[in-house]
């Protein structure tokens, strides 16, 4: 399975999963395996899915060769599903975001940070390659202590992580997401090996 992320003309983000399908005997082989495209909207706050934008992108993708020298013999399009996070895939997208909790999503809506969070989900993997991510509202200790955390499950050394975090912060300010910058804490939860192993079905965080 391969995946690509695209921003639609409407500004919504979509994720395409290209699924190779097995032949009749259950083995995918040969130069032209069938494949399917699964497009998912990764903008949970969009009022309406940008179906026209999706259609244009899908049609253009359909005409493009999927892999050099290996054109698909058939394409099945599964229409968009709305999802709550960037879907984790194992190749192109790499890093994964855990789903937001209701409390975190409510906080983001209240502060009108939806677009900033979408930006963060797109940008953060570029600064922390190979990491997994979790956006979480931390418990407030004082009335002034609303604190949104981006936990980065990775294994950078501390100086390197600090540098990367600063670059992410500067990019956030340049992209005009100052309100997010002011309340966001970005920190590393060290994991052994790939960040992909940090989550087990996004639920057993305590099991790491």
């Amino acid at each position, binding site marked *: 399975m391969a995946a690509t992320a695209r921003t639609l003309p409407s500004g919504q983000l979509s994720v395409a999963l290209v699924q190779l399908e097995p032949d009749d005997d259950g083995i995918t082989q040969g130069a032209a395996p069938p494949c399917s495209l699964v497009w998912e909207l990764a903008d949970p706050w969009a009022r309406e899915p940008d179906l026209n934008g999706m259609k244009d992108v899908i049609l253009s993708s359909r005409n493009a060769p999927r892999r050099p020298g290996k054109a698909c013999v058939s394409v099945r399009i599964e229409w968009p599903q709305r999802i709550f996070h960037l879907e984790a895939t194992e190749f192109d997208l790499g890093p994964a975001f855990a789903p937001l909790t209701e409390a975190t999503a409510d906080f983001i809506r209240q502060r009108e940070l939806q677009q900033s969070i979408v930006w963060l989900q797109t940008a953060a993997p570029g600064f922390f390659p190979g990491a997994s991510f979790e956006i979480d509202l931390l418990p407030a200790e004082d009335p*002034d202590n609303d604190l949104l955390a981006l936990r980065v499950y990775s294994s950078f050394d*501390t100086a390197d992580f600090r540098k990367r975090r600063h670059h992410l912060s500067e990019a956030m300010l340049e992209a005009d997401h100052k309100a997010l910058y002011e309340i966001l804490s*970005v920190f590393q*939860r060290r994991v052994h090996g790939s960040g992909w192993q940090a989550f087990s079905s996004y639920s057993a965080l*305590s099991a790491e």
Partner: protein
Amino acid sequence: MDGKRFLHTARFLQNNGSDEAAYRTAISRAYYACFLEARRIAFSNCSVAMRTKDGITNEKDIRHKSLQYYLKNSPDKPVRQLGEDLSDLQAIRIDADYIMALAVRAEHAQDAIEDAGAFLAELEKVGPGRVGKAMEEYIARMYPLGSFLHSQYSASQLGISNYSQQAQECRAPKSR
């Protein structure tokens, strides 16, 4: 007492601690070493007139978030980075202090201690003048016309970036 000494306590706990409670406490002490030192420097290098505008008469009036706002809103990049560091360390501390479902191991404490050490070194390098200036600049932006007077919380305590605008809205509420 010098707040920075908490970093020694953190190291002691990390080196000698044998259980998760010690690692969690080490993370907490590492943060407070940084917070207390940065707060002391900010308070003592900001003019009384500007401090008063934000309702700050005591060092303890500077809350965790306020201090981060002062630093993170500075046009001075290294000062901004100090704000990011502090915000990062505070979040790690909250995880360590409150979120028991997240396991804390020795390496997590080690990371927090290294972060705290880097923060204190950078704070010294940046110097107290630039930290005080960041606080003054923030307060000046928040209160261009007057000062903190009759509110329970000041702008920085509430985390308001556009305080003047919100104050105007409060004075002239929109009809529903």
